[in-house]
């Protein structure tokens, strides 16, 4: 009976994995609706930080959007402290 204590972790891992899998399956069933709305959007970036355009749509904004007012000026938006620009991506993008 006491040995069951050592089974708690593997059983919990199995239960969490099953719950996660069920939630993923439920989300997949919603995806046709999400994609139908997404096709109409300008960007499918997550609507997490709408205070500034570069935080709302980081994938489409120009790399210097965060510093639109002055070069290298501090980002005044509180969300800017939690989100970094995708510099590695910008270095690869095409622009002329």
């Amino acid at each position: 009976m006491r040995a069951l204590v050592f089974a708690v972790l593997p059983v919990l891992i199995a239960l969490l994995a099953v719950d996660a899998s069920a939630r993923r399956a439920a989300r997949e069933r919603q995806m046709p609706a999400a994609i139908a709305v997404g096709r109409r959007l300008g960007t499918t970036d997550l609507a997490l930080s709408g205070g500034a355009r570069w935080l709302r749509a980081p994938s489409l904004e120009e790399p210097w959007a965060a510093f639109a007012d002055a070069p290298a000026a501090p980002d005044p938006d509180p969300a800017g402290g939690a989100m970094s620009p995708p510099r590695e991506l910008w270095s690869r993008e095409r622009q002329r």
Partner: protein
Amino acid sequence: MMAKRSSFLAFVFGSLARRRAKALALGGGLAFAVALVAAVLFLTDALRGEADRVRSAMPDVVVQRLVGGRPSVVRSADTAVVADPPIPSVASVRARVWGYVFLPALQGNIVIVGIAKGAPSLDDVHGALSEGRDLREGAHEMLAGATLARFLGLRLGDELGLPTTQPSTPLKLVGTFSSAAELYAADVLFCDERDARTLLSLGPDEATDLAVTLANSDESRVVARTVLDRFAAQGTTARVVERELLGRVYALGYGRRSGLVLAASIPALLALLVLAWDRASGLGPEEKREIAILKAVGWSTADVLRAKLLEATAIGALATAAGLLLAYAWVFWLGAPGLRPALVGWSVLYPEAPLTPMVDVAQLLGIALGVLAPFVSLSIVPAWRAATLDPMDAMRG
């Protein structure tokens, strides 16, 4: 053999019960550390998964025009630059009308999207709208994110006049998006293209950007280069964003966020580990006497070592299980209160849709073993020290 194993376990659990406070301090600290790290990983993976899941809805290539280093409006002549002469593998080029409007009432931006004539109706897609119906052309109607509608106190049939420099007709709310699209469209307002032009101050010949759809998305790099060459030949600066690179935006953006949060938690985690080490390595006089008695009645050094390691494994396994359960419940059942604003950033309009877990058995096992293995290894030294005690010395105190 069974009896010996049973007596080992009886001793281990008896010992844990006798030193309940120490076991709880060790286990509680470890569970808290596991919960914090696992919750950050769960939340980051869920956000990245959510962003990736709908990436296929983006056009293969987006073309922006730059003026003075900032995105500027595109004109029909720019559409012609991309579309004429036709580039092989380009299936369509569409000028999109969308942008941001600052709402003083919200003290935040909302996203206005103009829906072009002939766009597939959302009425035909099951579950796209939580209530109402899709827009009707020319009827001055709007669809809005559920969060936005709730924030503005709008119900179906209500009209909203948005701040604009041009005279505009108030828009009537005819539907809201379902929770399926909440994470992408919480702050979005769809209206027909003509209304969007008025709200965004775009002329009839102007658009925000060009969406290029390809017959074969593998050719996006070639198409991007061709488009840029054509704009350069016209003496215009352009910027091209390829969909295939967006996955990296999300991986980098959310990866670095989780890194920041974890880095900020390092001092607390270190303090916790030092405390745990201190508690685990210290042998009290009670414990020393107990081990001495065991050795006096015939337990070998290996037996004591094994019992002590079992004790550490029991505490570690239970604490890891509690930590994982706490993290999962915190993020996916409760919506990560406290952690979500720290990790995803601050916003007036916040999507309230639940997140979908991306964790699987491999990741859960990885976290569990990553915690349990060092914890049990760290307990070897104090266990060895306990096992090699001289019974006579220990009993004398």
